[in-house]
C-alpha cells in the first residue's frame, strides 16, 4: 500500500462526518482523561467527608457527584477511562505483534508450516477462551500488566488469520519475486516487503479490536477479576454503581455513559476507516 493510497483513504475518512465526530469525541475524552488530575482539584482516593454520596453539582467541584465513601466520581471516572484506553492500546499492540508475526510466517512459508500453524489457531479458536482468561486472571490476579498480556494473548487469533490471508494473496506478486531474486533472506522479505503491505486491513482490524478489548477488560473488572481497589476501572465503577442505582443513580450514570460513548465512537471510527480503505485499497 503506497503513500498515495493512504492519502486518498485519509481524505475519504475526513469526508465521513460520523467518523470525524467519533474521532473528535475520542480525542476529547482522552484529553480529559489525561488532564483529569489537573482540571479537577479532587484526588482519586481523597475522601470528602462533607459530601458523601452527593449528586452531580458544582459544590466542591464534584461534577459527576461522589460515591459512598465521598470520593470524587469525575476524577475516578477519568482514571477509569485512562485505564481502559491503556489496556485497549497495550493489549491491541500485543495481539498485533503476535498476530502479524504468526500470520505473515504462516502465509509466506505456506505448505506444511502453514497447515500446522493454522491448525493450532483453529484449535485455540474452538476453545472457550473466556474461561482461560478468567483462570489466568485468577492465577496472576493482582498484576495489571499480566492482565493486559493475557487479554492480548487471546486477541491475536483473528489477527493472525487476517494477516495470513493477505500474505497468501501477495506472496506470488512480482515485487516479492524481485526481492528474492536480488538475494533478500526470508526474514527480511517478511519484515520489509510483506508486513508493510498488509497494513491496511490490519489497521482497520486493530481499530475495531481496541473497543472489544476495552469491553472485555471492563467485563472482567465488573466481575471483580480485573483492576483492583483502590484503583478504578470503568468496569469496577459500573459494578459499584449497579449496586447503588436505587439510592444514587449517578454513581452508575457517569462511568456507564462514558464507557458506552467511547465504545460506540471507536466502533464508528473503525467502520469509517474500513470504508475509507476498502474503496481505494483494491
Amino acid at each position, binding site marked *: 500500500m503506497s503513500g498515495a493510497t493512504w492519502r486518498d483513504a485519509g481524505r475519504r475518512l475526513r469526508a465521513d462526518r460520523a467518523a470525524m465526530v467519533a474521532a473528535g469525541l475520542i480525542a476529547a475524552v482522552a484529553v480529559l482523561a489525561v488532564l483529569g488530575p489537573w482540571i479537577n482539584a479532587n484526588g482519586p482516593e481523597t475522601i470528602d467527608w462533607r459530601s458523601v454520596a452527593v449528586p452531580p453539582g458544582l459544590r466542591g467541584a464534584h461534577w459527576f457527584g461522589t460515591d459512598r465513601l465521598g470520593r470524587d466520581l469525575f476524577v475516578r471516572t477519568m482514571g477509569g477511562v485512562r485505564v481502559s484506553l491503556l489496556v485497549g492500546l497495550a493489549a491491541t499492540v500485543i495481539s498485533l505483534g503476535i498476530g502479524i508475526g504468526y500470520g505473515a510466517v504462516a502465509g509466506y512459508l505456506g505448505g506444511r508450516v502453514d497447515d500446522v500453524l493454522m491448525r493450532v489457531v483453529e484449535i485455540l479458536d474452538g476453545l*472457550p477462551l473466556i474461561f482461560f482468561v*478468567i483462570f489466568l486472571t*485468577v*492465577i496472576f490476579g493482582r498484576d495489571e500488566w499480566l492482565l493486559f498480556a493475557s487479554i492480548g494473548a487471546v486477541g491475536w487469533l483473528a489477527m493472525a488469520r487476517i494477516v495470513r490471508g493477505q500474505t497468501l494473496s501477495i506472496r506470488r506478486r512480482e515485487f516479492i519475486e524481485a526481492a528474492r531474486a536480488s538475494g533478500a533472506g526470508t526474514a527480511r522479505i517478511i519484515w520489509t516487503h510483506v508486513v508493510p503491505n498488509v497494513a491496511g486491513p490490519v489497521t482497520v482490524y486493530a481499530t475495531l479490536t481496541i473497543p472489544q478489548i476495552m469491553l472485555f477488560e471492563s467485563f472482567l473488572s465488573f*466481575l471483580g477479576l480485573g483492576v483492583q481497589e483502590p484503583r478504578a476501572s470503568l468496569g469496577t465503577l459500573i459494578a459499584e454503581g449497579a449496586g447503588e442505582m436505587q439510592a444514587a443513580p449517578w454513581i452508575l450514570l457517569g462511568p456507564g455513559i462514558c464507557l458506552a460513548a467511547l465504545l*460506540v465512537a471507536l466502533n464508528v471510527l473503525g*467502520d469509517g476507516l474500513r470504508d475509507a480503505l476498502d474503496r481505494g485499497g483494491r
Partner: protein
Amino acid sequence: MVDFLLRRVRVAVPTLFVIVTLSFFLVRLAPGGPFDREQALPPEIVANLRGAYGFDRPLWEQYARYLGSLARGDFGPSFRYKDFTVTELIGQGLPVTFELGALALAAALGIGVPVGVFAALHRGSWADRGTMMLAALGIAVPTFVVLPFLALCFGIHWRWLPVAGWEPGSVRHLVLPVTALSLTPLAYVARLTRGGMLEAMSGAFVRTAFAKGLPLRTVVLRHALRPALLPVAGYLAPAVASIMTGSLVVESIAGLPGMGRYLVQGALNRDYTLVLGMVVVYSTLLIGMGLVVDLLYLWLDPRIRFERE
C-alpha cells in the same frame, strides 16, 4: 448426513478432552487452595481434609481419577458449598441459565431477522439508516451497562417491572434480563441479515423469480431468505458464547439463581471440582451449538450437502 454428524462428534470429543485437561492443570497452577480460610485451620485438619479428597496423591493420579469419575457422569463434591455435589449445583443453576439464554437467543433471531430483512428491502431509507444506527449502538454498548440502565428506567423510575430477583414461572422478572442479554446478538443478527439479504436480492435467481412474475413477498420468503441467512447461521456459535458471558453479569446484576456465579466464585474460591464442572457444562453447550450450526448450514446451503456426498 449421519456420517457427517459422526465425523463432527469425533472432533468434538477430543476438543472437550483438551479443554478439561487444560483447565484441570490451569486451576491447579493458581496459588492457594480450597481449604484456605481467613483463620488458618490447624495443620492436622488440613492434612485430613487433603487426604479425604485425595489431594495428597500425585497430580497425575488425581487427574486420572477425575477423568474416571467424569466418564461416569460424576462431577465430584463441591469444596465450598458444603453437602452439595457439583452435579446438584449444576442441576439447580443450569435450568435458570438455560431458560435465560434460550429466550435471549430466540428474541435475537425472532426480532433481528425481520428487522434485517426490512432494512435491506428499504435500503437507504431513513428507517434503514435508523435501525442500522441502533444496531451499531447495540453492538457497542455492553450488557452490564444496558441492564442497570433498563432497571433504572423501567424498574425504579416508572416501576413497571421488577428490578431484580427470580420467581419460578414469573415472566415479569425475566423481561429486563432477557432484553439486556439479547440486545448485542440482536444487533449483530439484524446487521448480518441485512447484508445477506442485500447480496441475495442482487442474485440472478432472484431476478429470475421476479421475471416469473412472483410477488415480492414470495420472492423474499421462498427464495432470498434462505441464502441470506447463511451469515446469521455462521454467527450462531459466537452468539451463544456472547450470551453465555453476558449471562454471567446479568445473573449477578439481576440476582438470578443461575450457574454463572459458580464459575467466577468457584475460580476465586479454588473450588476445583465446581470450576471444572462449570467448564465442562459451558463447553459442552458451546460445542453442541457448533454441531447445530453445521446442521443448519446443510439445510441452508444445499451446495455443501452435494459436495459431501
